[in-house]
């Protein structure tokens, strides 16, 4: 049972990382650690900023043929 839970947690972690769902948590951790005075954006604002960055440089997320 415990090992099953561990497998589930590992899969969940991998999927979240691969899809970049964890981007917000990562960013918040980064801001808290390196710039403790800076305000933390809401998830909504953060995701908007992320797509705007992609808009700015479409080479960022380009995939190959």
């Amino acid at each position, binding site marked *: 049972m415990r090992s099953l839970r561990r497998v589930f947690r590992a899969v969940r972690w991998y999927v979240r*990382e691969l*899809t970049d769902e964890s981007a917000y948590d990562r960013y918040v951790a980064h801001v808290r650690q390196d710039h403790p005075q800076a305000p933390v954006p809401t998830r909504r604002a953060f995701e908007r900023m992320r797509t705007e960055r992609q808009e700015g440089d479409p080479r960022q997320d380009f995939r190959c043929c």
Partner: protein
Amino acid sequence: MRTANVRTIVIWTLVALVGAAGWSVLALARGEDVSAAWMVAAALGSYAIGYRFYSKFIAYKVLKVDATRATPAERLNNGIDFHPTDRRVLLGHHFAAIAGAGPLVGPVLAAQMGYLPGTVWIIAGVIFAGAVQDMVVLFFSTRRDGRSLGQMAREEIGPFGGAAALIAAFAIMIILLGVLALVIVNALAASPWGTFSIAMTIPIALLMGFYLRVLRPGRVAEVSLIGVGLLLLALVAGRWVAESSWAGAFTLAPSTLVVWLVAYGFIASILPVWMLLAPRDYLSTFMKIGTIALLALGVVIALPTLKMDPVTDFASRGDGPVFAGSLFPFVFITIACGALSGFHSLISSGTTPKMIQKETQVRMIGYGSMLMESSVAIMALVAASIIDPGLYFAMNAPAGAIGTTVENASQVVTGWGYSISPAELAQAAKNVEEATLLSRTGGAPTLAVGVSEIFSKVTGGSLRAFWYHFAIMFEALFILTALDAGTRVGRFMLQDMLGNVYRPFKNISWKPGLVLTSAIVCALWGYFLWVGVHEPLGGINQLFPIFGISNQLLAAVALAVCTTLLVKSGRLKWAWITGIPLVWDATVTLTASYQKVFSSDPKVGFFKQRSVFQDAIDDGKVLPPAKSMDDMHTVVTNSTVDGVLTAVLALLIVVVIADALRVCVRHLRRPALSTLSEAPYVESKIQAPAGLVPTREEREEARDAVAPTGV
């Protein structure tokens, strides 16, 4: 001096034996049935040895990767695009970014020469050239804060070579988009099932985009699950639509599809990223990884028998119907992705170097991902080689060669030595619930037939038509995504170039400039698509070689940059690591372009083709496969454009290589003149294993690094 232990020696001897057994059976079999298992054995055995020995040698002896040196991800960590990413996650990222339609299409087309030449090139090419290129570019870009290939070419070679590299990248993008769109048109034309399911991906993506933007921002996993569910529903519904009275609305002629695709590309590329592009990207990534995993499983479980000849007569005669020209050089430009692909250098310099945790991981990410892509190419080759060769040629020869009826096609294909009856051709189409399979060129339909054959062996024959359309959907999905993303990248390059002439273009969010440059890019690839669809000689037949040449041109640029960097960074002794692949790639590409431009065989040489048809027009004659005087003029125009384009691409290769050579020679004569724009050394504070499985030392290191109190 380190001595290897006995267990290691035994294991690697066994691996070598498995690989060698695979190669021997493939090479020696003549006339008897060969199982695909041998191809898999040859590939996996060779990959393992290449990875264990050659890539390790390059990483530690040549590049001298340094685990104590902080990577850009660590130094410039901003929590968004620069951040140290777990190596297993980055492997998935990088693989999903490099593997697309390329490794699935090229090997299918190259199967006209038999399965052996393709197998040899895919495996040898990836070990000695393709994976080396990806890894070395990744390494050098990591040492330069994730600089792009174009920037590295400009900084390390010079403005001239840099400009040539930029023009090459733009030209390649246009041709790539045109050819990929052509593959889709050939797969969806007159297929209501396929067209409906692909059309449905647009509302599905819009829904996902809305969900992510408004309802639950950032919940990618759940929205992707919903999306994939709806996608499968659309796939099943496609059959109902095809059998209903709506079928007519989704049965589109090739020229109608061209208009739809260009309109889609244009509109999608000016919409905000969150609406269509981002959600589509999640969908296609999920589908890609899932289908490739399924295919690998299917091949291993079904272990089908190869029906194609090891080497066909077309290999030496050079008059094959799929693409003209003989084995050398054309197999080596037809199979690009999977063996050596210039496009990967754009991924290896750009996103991935900004996320890599440790320099030591370039081996696993760069070399390892490319080996994985190569195995995808091998599976595509298996899928194309297990279907009846008669059906293969009937599907991949242009209508100009085999006619439009099953009787005619059967007669022509049987004349080539691959007998297949009209009834068998009709039955093959009926099996996958398509009106016809004749001249479905471009590779995607052939791959889909092969995939449906493999999958239905595992799941039972009743699902054959479903699996065919599943495979079509899977390819169309990411080609459509590529059209959108590629148009944006092309537009970005164009805005940058035009910005030097008229300042406002540089501001990429300036709306008139954005719409105009998007329209130009779509018009350019739309032109090639239109030409490909209306080409009497067969669009894939004419355009695919140009696509191959341009992709290998980009590889030449990447390898030239790598070789220059090896020389300039004092690794002259090892410059052959990328130098030999460069010489090979340049030889292949230049020979191919020389033949496409100057060959006196009208099937191969564009200008000869032009003069043959022009002479006939002057005499007032119509030459087959042209059916009218209009067709004749079309051939003359297209051959001229194709010929000039090929010549320009070849010239660009020569310019880049000559410029790189000049820089190398200057460095050897007067090293003081060279500058190396490498980021200075900063000591790394993080610990991370180099390979997939941590070694015992790495585990101990990680344990020691954790503070006993726990932070």
